[in-house]
């Protein structure tokens, strides 16, 4: 899509060409494109890792890999999917769309923006390099502790842990820079007349995400730094023998880790209602209620972290507090679900690919949310915790709720970004293949968890065989279906039917007033909002 942007706007040829253009660019669309491309590549890297896992779990017994390598794949898969696929995708859309949606010429801090992106490729290399180093006999491979870095296992681990710690530092800096940029842009560069309560929902979602990132990333950075000093400099933060406590790490980690879930989801909760209103051809219902709900979730996000380790043992009052506060998250979410459906209600709906993804997203994310409500129950959590039930639950929230949401956004804005229509037929095929194979992958995992299969085991007892086999076959279908997604994006970027400025009949918002694709510098004259 990049080349076409250039081709259409020779009049802005003051920027360097070739690789230098991308290395030095401070343009919000170029940087957004780089974020999105990076995210797509890493989505396949992380996906390849998990297909390795699913191939190993296809039947009982060890077929392809030894347990050490298995443990490395699961942890790095998660880190890549969360930090290098989902978060950059959301940041990519933020870069592309926030200036367009608030009527600004660019992001407020363009050089910072460039740096934020270029921290990502080195951190992706840091994450994956230990795999390669191990082939040459250096170290014993990547992080093998799962993505959560729990000590003492991570203190015991090899150089993969150090690499992952530094990768997380870089990724964290990148996220904080991106967040600062979003906050500054939103507070300073809105078009005249666009009050906060007139901002598009996507901008609201991202604004809250940005605050959450700034609040929690430093805690993660602190926690992994303490881990680093425990590993190499003789401190005992997480070692009982020196007066520390391994569980303290879990508190610090999940103080970041739980808000992280909403960091990944809030941008999606932002643009899904916009997609719904576009294809229902009527304005979204309950704008204010949605904004307040997003704030409510953002606030609750930072006070519920300990539900990730109920089984680690804590006092009864703490258990009760974290249980009830976690359940409370369902209250604003219920309001959001109500508003989304009310937006569709008595609209004049049509089902182009973005709408299909958005509707499928509501259903699947609903399953993720409801199973999350059950997981909040401390007693039942003793059973669900660290079983495949949890694995299935968080893939409903993060794959369906996160990645399928991003896909909805991609199809929604792709014509705007490239100036061409994508293939509707392939898009719909992609949706149905993804939705069906996703469910076939993860529904069996709910039952595996209930039957007692722990997560993160490389080999399993015979009674788990059938469900694992179904799950593996479906996972490969799911993985291969994503090639359609890439094909559709690439061919859309290279050409196809011209997209109109408005693209969608029911589209609302400033981004649809610009040509498709928008000029290199978005709004040279600020639009005025009545």
């Amino acid at each position: 899509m990049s080349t076409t942007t250039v081709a259409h706007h020779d009049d802005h040829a003051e920027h360097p060409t070739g690789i230098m253009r991308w290395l030095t660019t401070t343009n919000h669309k170029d940087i957004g494109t780089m974020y999105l491309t990076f995210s797509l590549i890493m989505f396949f890297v992380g996906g390849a890792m998990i297909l390795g896992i699913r191939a190993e779990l296809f039947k009982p017994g060890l077929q392809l890999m030894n347990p050490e390598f298995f443990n490395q794949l699961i942890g790095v898969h998660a880190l890549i999917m969360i930090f290098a696929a989902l978060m950059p995708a959301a940041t990519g859309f933020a870069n592309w769309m926030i200036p367009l949606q608030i009527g600004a010429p660019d992001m407020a801090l363009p050089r910072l923006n460039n740096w934020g992106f270029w921290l990502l490729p080195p951190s992706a290399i840091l994450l994956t390099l230990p795999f390669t180093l191990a082939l040459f006999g250096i170290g014993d491979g990547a992080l093998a502790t799962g993505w959560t870095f729990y000590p003492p296992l991570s203190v015991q681990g090899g150089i993969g842990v150090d690499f992952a710690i530094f990768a997380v530092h870089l990724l964290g800096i990148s996220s904080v820079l991106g967040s600062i940029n979003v906050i500054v842009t939103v507070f300073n560069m809105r078009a005249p007349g666009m009050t906060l309560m007139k901002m598009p929902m996507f901008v609201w979602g991202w604004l809250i995400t940005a605050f959450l990132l700034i609040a929690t990333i430093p805690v993660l950075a602190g926690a992994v730094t303490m881990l680093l000093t425990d590993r190499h400099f003789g401190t005992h933060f997480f070692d009982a023998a020196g007066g520390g406590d391994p569980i303290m790490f879990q508190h610090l980690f999940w103080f970041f880790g739980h808000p992280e879930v909403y960091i990944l989801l809030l941008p999606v909760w932002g643009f899904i209602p916009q997609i719904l209103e576009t294809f229902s051809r009527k304005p979204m219902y309950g704008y204010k209620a949605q904004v307040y709900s997003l704030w409510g979730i953002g606030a609750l996000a930072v006070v519920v972290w300990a539900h990730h380790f109920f089984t680690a043992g804590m006092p009864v009052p703490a258990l009760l507090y974290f249980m009830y506060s976690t359940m409370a998250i369902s209250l604003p979410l219920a309001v959001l679900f109500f508003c989304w459906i009310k937006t569709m209600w008595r609209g004049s709906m049509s089902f182009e690919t973005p709408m299909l993804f958005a509707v499928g997203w509501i259903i699947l994310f609903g399953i993720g949310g409801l199973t999350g409500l059950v997981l909040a129950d401390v007693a039942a959590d003793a059973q669900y915790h660290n079983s495949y039930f949890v694995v299935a639950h968080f893939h409903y929230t993060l794959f369906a709720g996160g990645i399928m949401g991003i896909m909805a956004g991609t199809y929604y804005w792709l014509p705007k970004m490239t100036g061409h229509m994508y293939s509707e037929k392939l898009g719909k095929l992609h949706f149905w293949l993804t939705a069906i194979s996703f469910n076939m992958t993860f529904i069996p995992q709910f039952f595996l968890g209930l039957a007692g299969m722990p997560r993160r085991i490389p080999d399993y007892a015979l009674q788990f065989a059938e469900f694992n086999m179904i799950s593996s076959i479906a996972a490969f279908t799911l993985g291969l279906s994503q090639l359609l997604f890439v094909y559709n994006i690439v061919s859309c970027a290279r050409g196809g039917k011209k997209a109109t400025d408005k693209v969608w009949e029911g589209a609302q918002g400033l981004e649809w007033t610009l040509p498709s694709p928008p000029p290199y510098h978005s709004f040279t004259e600020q639009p005025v909002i009545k």
Partner: protein
Amino acid sequence: MQVFRKIGLGVSAMLVSFSAFADYAWNFPTPATPMALDTLHVHNKFMLISMAIFVSVLAIMIYSIFAHRKSKGFKAVADKAPSTAVEIFWTLIPFVILLVIDFVIMGIPAYHSVIMMENTREKADMVIKITGSQWRWQYEYLDGDAKGVKFVSNLSTPKEQTDKGFDGKKDEHYLLEVDNRLVLPVGKKVRILMTSTDVLHNWWVPQFGSSRVAVPGFLRETWVQVEKEGTYRGQCKELCGKGHGYMPIVVDAMPAEEYKAWVASKKDELAKASAGADKEWTKEDLVATGKGVYEKNCAVCHQVSGAGLPPAFPALTGSKVANGPIFGADGKYLKDSHLDRVLNGKNVMPSWKALLNDTEIAAVITYERNALGNSVGDVLQPSQVKTARQ
């Protein structure tokens, strides 16, 4: 129509799988303790509520999808810009529904479950201590008849079955069988203290409904009261390194008399083992015993051949430690000697002091020094280990 097609596909797929795995588990395994029973009730109730919410919301949405589509000529009916009061009223409805579900329908039973789960001490009939180690469980009875009974429980699935590329028939309880089972009396409330010697582990038997993380340096507690005689199986549930998938739990619940008999026989066995520590062993006997101990405990890292998995797990063949002197001139064992390393561990190497008895330690050291390609030729007697412990 596409939505119907999707539902049809889903339902038919479910039916096919139902008939194919008619005896397959769709829910928690049969509960064996009051806590597991409670968890099952909670789970079933919540699942029904969730289903009800899900289906009713889905129904409204699907109705809308079919009725309110452009292709049918349905014109959008714009919501009359709601006054704030109307909007608050409508959006409060889902809020209030969830409020009732969360904090009344679900919240009140959940409160009682938590209190029950955490009530480990009241009316406890006996106390046991479970220690997780990479990658085995150690059980110790702390009071009552069985006081002092203490043993280690290892995976006993034959190693060739768990090896990479094994394609033959696997045991019925593949990966879920151990050499020494934990034995508990039926109907007694057992308070469980939990700890670990190295990393986090989690002792989990699904039919007991209790799971608790074993934290090194701390004691955590939980309890079980097995109501029905039988054998129960579970696994470690917290990623603990490469052997995480290979530390199963097997519990035999026995009626009081059988339990008593088991305690007596176990005590006998332990007495014999400690008597063995006082006699003089021949090198052949030690090497033969040591081979068994080695393959059960050490081979997972140092490999059956002694080649290790460098750099994380060093080779024993030709190793400086395994070929160097054990005792100094003063008759005490040297720092960083073979015996020191096995007794006290270093870095990833765990301490075996609590996991193996004197005979086992003497045997495995003698084996490592006289097999695996090493031929130091000396013999370490169990009595020497016993002295070294003091």
